[in-house]
Each structure stands twice: as structure tokens, then as C-alpha cells.
């Protein structure tokens, strides 16, 4: 089993369900990547690198999701 800390809360994943990249994680969470700023272990990851950025158990991810209106 793997664990990711997402916005301060630990979320467990079964080994075969562990997302491989940030893009996989957002897809698992059902979040549109066009609306998210992501920080992996304190470093901002640009949106066009979500699919190429691997994640592994034990890492901390902050996801800031934007909804429209202003």
C-alpha cells in the first residue's frame, strides 16, 4: 500500500491503484488539470509537466483548485 499526503491529509492507495504521475492523481480525483496549481514536496510543478512528473508513496502534494467567477 502507498500513501500520499494531499493538502495535509494522508490518503492511502492500494499498490495497483497508486497513481504514477500528477496527471494520474488528478484523473483519479476527478479534477480537471487545467484548473489546478500543484506543489510537490514544496516545489511548484508546471501544468504541462503533470504527465511527466512521477509521484511516489510518502510525498506531499498541495493542490490548489480554481473555480470560475470574478
Amino acid at each position, binding site marked *: 500500500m502507498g500513501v500520499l499526503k494531499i493538502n495535509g491529509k494522508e490518503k492511502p492507495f492500494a499498490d495497483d491503484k497508486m497513481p504514477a504521475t500528477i496527471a494520474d492523481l488528478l484523473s483519479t480525483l476527478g479534477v480537471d488539470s*487545467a*484548473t*489546478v496549481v500543484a506543489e510537490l514536496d514544496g516545489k511548484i510543478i508546471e501544468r504541462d509537466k503533470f504527465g511527466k512528473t512521477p509521484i511516489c508513496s510518502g510525498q506531499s502534494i498541495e493542490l490548489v483548485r*480554481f*473555480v*470560475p467567477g*470574478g
Partner: protein
Amino acid sequence: MRGDPKNLLRLEPAKGGELKEPESTPFAGVLCYFMSSITEKLARSVVGVAGLGGLGSNVATALARAGVGKLIIADFDNVEQANLDRQQYFTDQIGKSKIDCTVENLRRINPRVEVEVHNVTLVPDNIPRIFRNVDVIAECFDTAAAKQMIVETVLTKTERIRIVSVSGLAGYGNSNAIKTRRISPRLVLVGDGQTGIDTCKFLTAARVGVAAMHQANAILELLIDEISP
């Protein structure tokens, strides 16, 4: 604080609206010193306002009233009748550019504020240049993708600029669900985080106003309490 001179407007007071020097102050001693140090900090500050809709038109107004020295404002749009439900414009401004109308309105409020204008669409290529001299940017866009774009750009393509962004302000009521949260040293996020115009189909001056004043207040806090990194 240099900008492109052609974009820099020194505001003249509106006719009949000249400001007088204050004759006396109600503050004395330490309190007077405290207030004057805040006034000086704000007068030296530069804030970028990205977008002049429901958020930006209200944030710019609040910052001018607070005495922020310079605003760098950017928008590409004109005032429409439908904007008057929440944006700081007036019926006689319909059809004019939001940039021109904001300058006109700020001039009537505080002719001492310096305003640099950019009638452009903000994109990753021009954001670092247009806002290079600001202390803080107010993200005042309406689409989620544009909000994402400017926050990501500021955090990855600039070194020290802080950004106050908004997510979740649609509908009415539930004022206290709108929070100001420090996400990271350079990012402050305002809003309830979930109520967008995609799910809640309308915006009100009141709830957008609550978010805009959270945003302006967070900016004042950054300018007064923290030295720009």
C-alpha cells in the same frame, strides 16, 4: 518604480475635487508615528491588478482609498450593461474600455495614486514584464484556466512577487465561508474553494464584494507587515 512611460498616467484631480492637506491629525505620539509609518509604506507600494471585472474594479478602488502609491492595471475588455450588477462602473461608462473607466474612477477617489495601464490580454509571456516592479499581484480573472495560468506563471517565472488569488465566490449569502488562506510564502488564496459560476449560475455584487475586500485586505496586510522577499 519605473514602467513604460507611455503607460504611466499621473492622475489630475477631477474638476472641483482637489485634495486638501489634512489640517490636523486626531492621532498623537506613538500612535501618530505608527500611522505615518503605515501611510509611508503604502505610498511606496506598487500593486498589480490583473483583470478589472467584479474583483479587480473593487480591489483597485479599495487600494486607491487606502493610499497605495501605484497601481499597474491590466484588462482588454469594455464595460457592458451586464457588468453593472457587481462591477465598479456606471451607466455612462457602458461601451468604454474598463482601463479608461477605472482610471477615471480612481482619479475621482484619490488623485495621488499613480496608475500604469495595459490594455492587453495577459499571458505567460507578458505577465513577468508587465508586473516586474510590483510587490503584490491581485488575480482578478473570471475563468479557472486564467486563474491557474497567472498563479503558475507568477510562482514559476518570477522570483519575489506575491499573488493573492480568488477561488469560490459565486451566489449569495454564506459570507463566512469565504476565507483568506496562506497557501505558501508567495500565494494567498481567498474564497470558499468550491462555489463557481459553473455550478452556481450567478454572481452578486455582495458576495463578489466580500471576496474582493478579503483580497484587498490581504494585500494591505502583505504590504504593511511583510518585507517583499
